[in-house]
């Protein structure tokens, strides 16, 4: 039997501190759907995903009810579509099929309209990348991610240059919805193959046929635990570790149960602390609880580095396989504390870039002025990707140049995507650098063999 304190602690974590399982993401390999016919490829994709994920939402809801914990999203990730469609050139037909699947299964997001172009782009991959604005502006639940660099290959600057233009096109095509297509597009360095989180989820080539990956959440739980911690920073780190352990154990339990019921292999638990715009579910507020007047103050990077490390240390013991992005997320629009810090001028774009060097994942859900040029966006991408490549970690860029809006305005995305105050950015031109193209070679320390 448990003590009343243990039971009440768990119940309070769920009912008052927003502990939830952010997502059960079912990864489905589509390699066996490749044909040279657009129609047959689409038919095979439809049949396979519907047979594997037809019950995903129901199973997620059942587990949620039995354990008494919200499972906020049920998602699907698939093999990067550029690999599946290259034989038939049927990417635009596949996007319609995926959109239909997303509606019929009732899932929240489907990720994998993706390409891996970290070393170079084939002519077909270039064509695929150019289809992203249409794909994301004509669907609601499909997400796209592009890997433009790895620590081993260096940075494909041709892809970086192209992605600046693509982000602008996505913004324009959804100009009546605050350029929301950009919120479903992420540019990666060192993309991981087992990520359950959107917009960057896809199922890598080295994965099983069907895999359950689970993303936990729980910034509110960590903040509440820290409210009672009056010790020094070693005590703070210990408190975060112990809390992360408990949060992650729930993720592990859900991952095991979901994989059993879905007849899929149990992949990984992603230890990321994922915030939501709800008050009391903020990573920024954890940093402030540690002792910052506002996130963005000098000291923020150090606090975040400690938080990220302690979350991993607590989580690693709690589950069999850790994967995905696993760290603290700092999306601006999805975190009440980040939104406020931006509004009062405490948090700048450049500070966010520094913060991404010590946490997952990158410049995430940041709204920037709509008149930002494609080259400046490519410059933003290049800087962030370089941080990932040199530090041998995953970094990503998900910025939204909100069409028709300027710094100080606000963009509304709704739901988990939240609200974003539009940030001021440096507008000096990197055009000559971006237009050189080519590849930035891999850093010296990546040559480890």
């Amino acid at each position: 039997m448990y003590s009343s304190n243990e039971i009440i602690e768990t119940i309070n974590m769920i009912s008052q501190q927003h502990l939830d399982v952010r997502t059960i993401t079912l990864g489905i390999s589509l390699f066996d759907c490749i044909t040279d016919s657009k129609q047959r490829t689409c038919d095979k994709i439809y049949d396979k995903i519907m047979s594997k994920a037809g019950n995903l939402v129901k199973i997620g809801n059942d587990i949620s009810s039995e354990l008494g914990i919200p499972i906020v999203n049920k998602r699907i990730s698939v093999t990067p579509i550029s690999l599946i469609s290259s034989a038939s050139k049927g990417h635009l037909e596949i996007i319609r099929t995926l959109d239909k699947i997303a509606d019929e299964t009732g899932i929240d997001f489907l990720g994998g309209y993706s390409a891996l172009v970290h070393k170079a782009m084939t002519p077909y991959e270039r064509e695929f990348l150019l289809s992203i604005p249409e794909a994301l502006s004509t669907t609601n639940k499909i997400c796209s991610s592009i890997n433009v660099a790895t620590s081993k290959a260096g940075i494909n600057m041709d892809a970086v240059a192209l992605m600046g233009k693509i982000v602008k096109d996505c913004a324009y095509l959804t100009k009546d919805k605050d350029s929301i297509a950009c919120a479903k597009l992420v540019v990666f360095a060192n993309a991981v193959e087992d990520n359950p989180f959107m917009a960057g989820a896809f199922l890598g080539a080295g994965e099983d046929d069907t895999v359950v990956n689970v993303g936990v959440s729980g910034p509110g739980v960590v903040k509440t635990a820290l409210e009672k911690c009056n010790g020094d920073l070693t005590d703070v780190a210990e408190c975060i570790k112990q809390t992360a352990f408990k949060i992650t154990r729930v993720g592990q339990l859900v991952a095991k149960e979901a994989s059993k019921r879905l007849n899929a292999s149990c992949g990984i638990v992603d230890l990321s602390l994922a915030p939501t715009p709800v008050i009391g579910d903020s990573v920024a507020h954890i940093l402030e609880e540690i002792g910052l007047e506002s996130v963005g103050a000098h000291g923020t990077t150090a606090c975040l580095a400690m938080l990220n490390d302690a979350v991993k240390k607590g989580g690693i013991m709690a589950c069999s396989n850790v994967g995905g992005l696993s760290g603290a997320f700092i999306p601006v629009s999805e975190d009440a504390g980040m939104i406020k810090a931006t509004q009062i001028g405490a948090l700048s774009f450049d500070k966010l870039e520094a913060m991404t060097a010590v946490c997952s994942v990158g410049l995430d859900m940041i709204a920037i002025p709509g008149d930002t040029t494609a080259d400046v966006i490519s410059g933003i991408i290049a800087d962030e990707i370089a941080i990932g490549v040199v530090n041998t970690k995953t970094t990503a860029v998900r910025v939204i140049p909100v069409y028709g809006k300027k710094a100080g305005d606000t963009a509304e995305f709704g739901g988990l995507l939240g609200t974003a105050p539009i940030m001021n950015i440096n507008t000096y031109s990197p055009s000559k650098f971006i237009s050189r193209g080519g590849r930035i070679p891999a850093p010296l320390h990546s040559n480890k063999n």
Partner: protein
Amino acid sequence: MKAIVSVIGKDKKGIIAKVSTALYEMNINIEDISQTIMQDYFTMIMAVDTSECPLKFDAIVDKLKELGEKTHLEIHIQLQSIFDSMHKIDTDKKGL
């Protein structure tokens, strides 16, 4: 399935009677009960076995929630495995 029923609310007469009657009517066996007063709130924890209950788990959740609303108590039922996971390191049992 082994589950934990937790009842939290202002102390008053008949709480145990009402909750245990509801469980009896659903053919749920009570295996252990503990109760305490925490921060002025009555807290009762029951370890139960639902294996002979004809209802699906979400229906049990709804019935107890309904009873909680009627009696102004917070009543939860959750599978024991979530508490095992969070509070015990050595109890990695198969299934839920």
